[in-house]
């Protein structure tokens, strides 16, 4: 009984033989920053005019500006129009199931400290089916950047009420207008313990980029709510936040203390269009760091021992 019928074997790397490599890989030192063309993959399937286009364009900008290599980032998403994001980015990426992108991304983040994980998705994905994951990923402060492209509607499934749809929004599941009180994503994030909470809108590209940069530089769970208009099913939803449509784009007041949770909550309580910018930021140790610390306490203790020797110590106690 004690033999292993399927023994360990080294895996072939890839379907395509490496020996007849068609492409030469430039040396690390010869690499130049990526151009927009190099980071763009499939042409987005979004409706013309969809707010998600700007979010994608600014993600490309971020990669260009910060000289991130393809292989150093991973783009993860759940399901929804916005969640199709990973297909449009020329980098390692995963299009996972509805609402569960955060735990998937956590698996990457916690096992691969060398990568930066970006998660993109919609309001339904984040706050309805994925609501519980949102709270727990935030409270655990797992390092990643999560950008929710909030359009106040279910886009992919064609206009049902979303958890952020305002009261009275007429959808296919609320023909009389939405009756359920909406979620306030900023309050939700602050209350859950997210360590970086920011709000932006697709109509202000510079601001989106600023928020993305700050989020990426944050060591912890960084959350951005990016208003992103669904021109198909909720046209004009955010007009009052767009100066070009006669609305007001107000930055978070200069004297706002981002480490003050209650002040952040007050900002989140402003009526639409509210403020844009970083509402809250704190420097709690990440789960990644805490797990690493636990591991370090052992690596000191077991220094020089091979894995099998560590296991043998357990087995010796079981005799």
């Amino acid at each position, binding site marked *: *009984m*004690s033999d*292993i*019928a*399927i023994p*360990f074997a080294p*895996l*072939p*790397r*890839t*379907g*395509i033989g*490496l020996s007849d*490599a*068609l*492409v*030469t*890989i430039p040396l690390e030192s010869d690499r130049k920053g990526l151009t927009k063309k190099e980071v763009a*993959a*499939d042409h987005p399937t979004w409706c013309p005019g969809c707010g998600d286009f700007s979010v994608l364009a600014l993600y490309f900008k971020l990669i260009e500006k910060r000289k991130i*290599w*393809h*292989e150093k980032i991973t783009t993860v998403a759940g399901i929804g129009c916005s969640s199709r994001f990973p*297909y449009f980015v*020329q980098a*390692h*990426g*995963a*299009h*996972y*199931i509805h609402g*569960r992108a955060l*735990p*998937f991304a*956590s*698996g*990457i*983040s*916690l*096992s*691969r400290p*060398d*990568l930066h994980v970006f998660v993109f998705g919609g309001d339904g994905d984040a706050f309805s089916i994925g609501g*519980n994951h949102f*709270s727990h990923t935030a409270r655990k402060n797992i390092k990643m950047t999560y950008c929710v492209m909030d359009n106040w509607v279910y886009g992919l499934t064609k206009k049902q009420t979303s958890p952020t749809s305002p009261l009275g929004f007429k959808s296919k599941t609320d023909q009389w207008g939405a009756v359920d009180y909406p979620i306030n994503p900023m309050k939700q994030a602050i209350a859950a313990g997210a360590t970086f909470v920011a709000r932006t809108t697709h109509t202000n590209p510079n601001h989106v980029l600023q928020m993305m940069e700050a989020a990426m530089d944050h060591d912890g769970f960084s959350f951005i709510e990016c208003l992103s208009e669904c021109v198909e099913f909720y046209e004009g939803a955010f007009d009052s936040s767009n100066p070009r449509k006669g609305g007001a784009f107000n930055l978070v007041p200069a004297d706002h203390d981002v480490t003050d949770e209650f002040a952040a909550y007050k900002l989140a309580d402003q009526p639409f269009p509210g403020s844009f910018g970083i509402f809250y930021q704190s420097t709690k140790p990440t789960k990644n760091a805490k*797990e690493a610390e636990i*591991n370090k306490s*052992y*690596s000191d*203790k*077991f220094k020089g021992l*091979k*894995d*099998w020797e*560590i*296991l043998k110590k*357990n*087995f010796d106690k*079981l*005799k």
Partner: protein
Amino acid sequence: MSDSASTATPAGSASKVLKIEEAVIRIAGNSQDGIQAIGGFLARLAGRSEQEVMTFMTIPSTISGGPSIFQVRIGSGEVLSAGDEADMLICFYQHSYEEHITSLKLGGIVLYDADHVTPKPEWEENYRHVGVNISSLTVEAVGGTGRDKGKNIFSLGLLAKIFDLNIPKLTKLIEERFGGKDPTVVQNALTCFNAGYSHSFENLLKTYQFYDAEKKDKHQVVMNGNEALAYGLIAAGVRFGAGYPITPWSDIMELLRRELPKYGGSFIQTEDEIAAISMAIGASYGGRVAVTGSSGPGISLKTEALGWASMAEIPLVIVDVQRGGPSTGMPTSVEQSDLNICCFGGHGDSPRVVIAPASVEDAFYTAIEAVNIARKYSTPVIILTDQAIATRIEAFEEPDLEKICQDISPDFTPVAEHKPYDLSVGDGVTRHIAPGTRVGSGKYPVVTGLEHDEMGHPTGSPKLHVQMTAKRRNKLRKLAWDFPKVKTYGPNEGQILLVGWGSSEGPIREAVDRARAVGEAISSVNLKYINPLPNGLEEIFRGFRHVFVVELNDEGLYGYGQLAAVLRARYCEPKIRGITKTDGLTWKVKEILDRARTLASQQV
């Protein structure tokens, strides 16, 4: 007690010593009495004495206590099950006595706590009753604190006396177990033990002595099935896992949480089972096969994500420690009713691998195989174990860890170009490169649950869906050829073939031994590989008049257990019939034989 006739009288002892092959001892009390500890000591002692041992226990599913038993079978020869009937019953309470007396062999010994149990005259005729004031003697021994905590160790002393157990080894085990804490704890334990050991039975009982077990070349290790499985995962090189607590899976996640950091890994307790499997898949995608697991309802929650792993062809190990279902069901009872969900659960055609360990030792090696299959075939693999294997303790030969432990760390060397779902490769198996790997062509793969093209980009092409569906299916057909040839236990021709899987293997083999000893042509096979099934079973079936599938689940609407139904569908063989039960208890050898004989006498 299968005692052989030889009676010896050691010098200096007036009482008779009877040599025995094996003994089945059942200890019945409440869960807070530390009954499991007695069983644990006996099992460890057997392991150190090169004897074979198997245990069986029940624990109430409520934490506040309740009736609990521990049965241990120790033998100098092969031990395949925890034993149908006990040779000796130790009972702490009236309810334990009344509930378990029938599990005793006629003529067996009841050792009861005379402080709590009043023997019934009608039973006194059939069983040897020996009363000992276990509670009060324990209290007396530890200095009259009025608490009888320690009566388990006192009883262990009694057993040591009756079975002439190795006192230095037992003392050492007690010291190891209670050492490190407050020294008075060890002292009290030893006091209890010695008090039990020096109790005089005044010729009420003779002393039994186990035959020496055959010398084994290697040390034995003693553990339960959950421990073996978890250590197997570590040996296989798994360094990341995620889970949510549920009985009886929790032990595995607790162990991995505790142990993985020693190897630079981690195990994460998530908010629910969906997050757990998602996190494990994320880590697997990150380059190194990860593990998740659950029992009962938690398995149901994982099915959507499991389908994603089938679709995206991500290697992953999922442990299902089966318990009684459906719903919350019978949390601490054994059942083998998750075969269907594990093989078929989820929407769409989502092939995955299902393998079932048959014993504690097998759980260790099965875990390693699961990891290797997951890697080699880039597929989710479910280890379908059960509550009986999870909780029972066995002694087995210490694995050669230096040889067995594997390094499965990911390879990040750049590749020129990469197509994960390449349809042109011969074996049809997907190869992923982990994020972090440079691709010279600048074209990076995406993994997805949408039907996709060779690069992982979504497609609505009917042709690609046909090709990719076939690809995902065919690689498992290929895997079936990798499995070792199935061997029958007993001759490969005869009247009855008993087919079993999982924890039923031991009792089935014992049933075969018993039947063959009286001239019946019964053999058995154990199916470790459930999905895909190994090739060549039809040939084996051909050699028998009846094929009975013995499993712990319901006969269902159409009269066949879950594996039986799969086998009938696969082989269109009417002689395949089912022997099932749902009482939440492991098979007794006698039950299997009685049922098989009856079924064989009925027309198909």
